[in-house]
């Protein structure tokens, strides 16, 4: 009995350790060979590594038990209920709700406010900067909400994703032309920071689940792609925000 539980656990901990090994090697090599300095606090390092390995193992277990099944079962339930409005509303809520409180986004919008204030585009005053940061965050959250809505709608219709992405790229290029220079870097980065570790598995399971429950959809071709939308729209919306504010 014990071995039947411990064996898979030991195996997945080994897997997690293997995932982590490259980072350890890279940091070890640069510290000892390139910078030629000793490793400080070897004990802390080993203990921390153990925590990371345990954490990754738990995460993968939770993924298969909780996040994947709930994402797929909700997709099936919405598909059998047949209410497109509720499905799209759910899509928006999921995109908006998971993004608006994302710590990486909070950090980046604060930095963006500092950039704008130092560049003289907004008043260098605390209240103005806070409002700018909050508005920027809301802009990104709305854009991710819309991205999931568009992405889900695409799955329902079975349209090819590349047309959407190419149009999105063209929009990004056009907006880059008009956007103030200081916001371009932030806008480009905001596409990457919006999708957190919990959102990604959930949204992926939702897409694949939807494609599985609708007849004639291929889960590979139609199920993936939601994350792609969620990393493209923030770029467009943040640049639009920059044009409007400045």
């Amino acid at each position, binding site marked *: 009995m014990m071995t039947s539980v411990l064996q898979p656990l030991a195996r997945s901990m080994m897997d997690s350790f293997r*995932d*982590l090994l*490259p*980072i350890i090697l*890279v*940091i070890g090599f*640069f*510290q000892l060979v*390139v*910078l030629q300095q000793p*490793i400080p606090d070897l004990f802390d*390092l080993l203990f*921390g590594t153990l*925590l*990371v390995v*345990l*954490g990754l193992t*738990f*995460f*993968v*277990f*939770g*993924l298969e*038990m909780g*996040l994947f*099944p*709930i994402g797929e*079962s*909700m997709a099936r339930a919405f598909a059998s*209920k047949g*209410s497109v409005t*509720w499905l799209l509303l*759910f899509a928006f809520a*999921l995109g908006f709700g*998971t993004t608006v409180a994302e710590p990486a986004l909070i950090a980046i919008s604060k930095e963006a406010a500092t*950039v704008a204030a*130092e560049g003289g585009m907004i008043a260098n005053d605390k209240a103005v900067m806070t409002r700018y940061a909050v508005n920027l965050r809301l802009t990104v959250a709305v854009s991710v909400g819309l991205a999931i809505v568009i992405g889900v709608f695409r799955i329902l219709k079975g349209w090819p994703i590349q047309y959407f*992405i190419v149009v999105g*790229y063209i929009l990004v*290029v056009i907006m880059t032309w008009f956007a103030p220079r200081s916001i*371009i*870097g*932030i806008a*480009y*980065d905001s596409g*990457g920071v919006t999708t957190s*570790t*919990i959102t*990604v*598995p*959930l949204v992926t399971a939702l897409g694949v689940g939807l494609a599985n429950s609708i007849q004639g959809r291929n889960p*590979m*071709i139609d*199920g*993936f*792609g*939601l*994350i*792609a939308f*969620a990393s493209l729209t923030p770029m467009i919306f943040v640049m639009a925000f920059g044009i409007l504010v400045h």
Partner: protein
Amino acid sequence: MGIFTTALSTLRDVLPIAVIIFGFQFLVIRRPIANLKRVLAGFVYVLIGLTLFLEGLEQALFPLGRLMAEQLTDPAFIFGSLDNMTSVVHWADYYWVYLFAFAIGFSTTVAEPSLLAVAIKANQVSGGAIGIWGLRIAVALGVAIGIALGSFRIVTGYPLHYFIIAGYLVVVIQTIFAPRLIIPLAYDSGGVTTSTVTVPLVAALGLGLAETVPGRSTLIDGFGLIAFASLFPIITVMAYAQLSEYTARRQRRKTAQ
């Protein structure tokens, strides 16, 4: 003490998602969740897992990684001593930085939990045709190239959008020729690469470079590395699929002869 703060902030991350899911489940779908206990246990596991994961990174790898990024970009290291430093730097002087950018981009991406999640799903959906490791290594190579190139851009000061637009062109051209099944997954892999592990270390590298290279501003040039890290995996994942298709076709031709 630190672990409680981490647990709290992870809980704050999970809470809105849980509210939305269970809200819609009870108010709109109005059907009991199958295996509710198991699903809830799964959520708790994810919570514990992410907390331990982040706490461990914060204790072990992040401080050292950040310090390393600072030291490697420090002009005193790059030019041997500050006296050797010129007011206009040559991009090739920063070779250790590019190498570090490449290595840290690759290794952090391999450990990225959200990429692992997508790779597991893609492996299931494709019936094993897409290998978990194949996808992860293709994405990690993309991030590595992206961050190395992004560091080069900060050192030289070339405008960010030239690189990104050129990358877009490559993506569009590849889309025409790549196997259709891989395209949505390739696009997705751009967004999943940059989360918990990669962003903090990469941000430290970008900031360190923008601060110390003469003529760069942290505020304008410090951004952009994440954009690179989310563009190049799209290219490498499609290239990976094109390569496997090409070798499979050659194999078939060989056996046919």
